[in-house]
């Protein structure tokens, strides 16, 4: 089912969030609401209100085709981290 996701960063910590169907913000991509032509206006209005109230910032919308994210960018964002392995923070024995 094609539709629209509304996503943003939470102002106080920058964490990526998505607007859920109940118009709360979720940190989990799979709980994001997918809005259609009927529901998207109300969702936008709610999201904009949260931006005005300084809860989120940098709101934008993503077109989706069903549940699959269409771009690499959105997949990486949903994964909350890079697609490569970070260097290990190990404690080597000190000579």
């Amino acid at each position, binding site marked *: 089912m094609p539709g629209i996701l509304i996503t943003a960063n939470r*102002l*106080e910590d920058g964490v990526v969030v998505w607007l859920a169907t109940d118009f709360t913000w979720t940190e989990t991509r799979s709980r994001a609401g997918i809005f259609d032509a009927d529901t998207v206006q109300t969702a936008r209005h709610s999201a904009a209100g949260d931006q005005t109230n*300084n809860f989120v910032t940098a709101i934008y919308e993503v077109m989706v085709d069903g549940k699959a994210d269409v771009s*690499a*960018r959105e997949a990486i964002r949903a994964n909350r981290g*890079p697609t490569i392995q970070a*260097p290990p*923070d190990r404690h080597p024995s000190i000579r």
Partner: protein
Amino acid sequence: MYKYDTIDRDFLDRRSAQFRDQVARRLSGELSEDEFKPLRLQNGLYLQLHAYMLRVAIPYGVLSSRQLRGLASIARDFDRGFGHFTTRQNIQFNWIKLVETPDILDRLAELDMHAIQTSGNCIRNVTSDPLAGATDDEVENPMVWCEVIRQWSTLHPEFAFLPRKFKIAVSAGAEDRAATGFHDIGLRLVKARSGEVGFRVLVGGGQGRTPRVAQQLTPFLPKKNLLSYLEAILRVYNVAGRRDNIYKVRLKILVEAMGIEAFSDAVNMEWVGIRDSVVELPLEEFERIQRHFARDTLPPADLTSEILEAYCGKGHAFERWMRHNVLPHYDPGYANVCISIKALGRPPGDASASEMERIADLADRYGMGEIRFTYSQNVVIPHVRRDQLIRVFEGLGDIGLNGGENGLIGDMIVCPGLDYCNLANARSLPLADRIFQHFADAGLRDEIGKIRLNISGCINACGHHHAADIGILGVNKKGVENYQISLGGRAGEDAAVGRILGPSFDEHRVPDAVAAIVGLYLHRRKPDETFGDAVVRLGVDVFKRELYAAA
């Protein structure tokens, strides 16, 4: 290196408190996002793909072991345990919380560090030669002038809201190791026939969407007039820069549009009114700064038996490291050690907290407790006694950072790309690893020799792909990550912008494309001819034909 005094420390404390107040005003809504954004950028805080990103200033790439340990602790306490070394010789952290940033700035202030001028439309962290003050091919120590410029540009009231970011680099070596030709202002310390030292001033260089090599504004600027001349250039830019068009906003476009002659006239008109005025640096202040960079007295080093002994039986890896990563020092008993933060299976430029701590330990034990970040995203420990190089090599081996890759094909400059960046079109870090895997044989990398392969994830060119022998640019082709290849760019004295070869490749085909280009070079090169020189001799078209012949 420059040591903070009570004035510098008091400044950082107040600055940090000021930002705490600004964050509170943003959270309460007193400041809008539009108004807050330049204020947070003035403190190094971006909003990136995953969260806020904090870029900490390492002035001209120089820091102490204590400071590096402090950065490691910040990585561990406020982020995910690692940081990323940038091409402006800074470090950045990727998952920072706005509400914790004032605490981080306090922590940095305790280390005599900050995040000022690492982002936003201001004069950015001045960059320089990572071997400054530790090499004998320099006219004089450029770090003195970097520090002068750093202080002058700090809280400059006129230039806090420039049309766009503004980058200055200073070099003093016979070899330009600071890419001065690709900066808004490039300063090269030169000695006139009279023996007087001054600056050759270049303007209007830069990469990004419209790469340009800087042009000479004046062949010789007396040192005493540096600050008034910089003010004049900046004022002309601040007034006339194209604020109406983000693609035309950098100094390079203004210089090109006006022509270097007219730009020079405009600068001189401003300069005439402020030359030799209160704007100039007082001599006593210059001398105060200069004293911080006086050469340390190095204990005499024994040059003979131990080194030879150390070589014996340590094998190929140590010889490679000695050959590529041990750089000359002004004292023949000493060396500057380049640590390659590039190795198979690790993202170029990323280093973990424990790796930073180990590097700090090695700098304390075998160097003078000083560390340099390089614009090619590596680390240098200056002033290491030659007879202790083997111990440094072994110490680095414990953390897997004893690769001898400096200047070779694995030593790629790579931007964070789509894995981290809001602006990127394509990933760069996984591609770098793919290419490295393709050249996994160290013997092959040695045979190829000196070559610069750089990767940018978008046209903003943070990965310096324009200035690379082989430049790779990530593009978005109908929603799929693709990569353009260019050839023939160089930084340094004879700076040049690379030329795009042709249609782009998907990520799977890039390593083969690179291999085809390199293969042609290996086949056609003359003895001792570097890749860059071969491209100049043979011409880019020869490589282009080879690359697309198979396709």
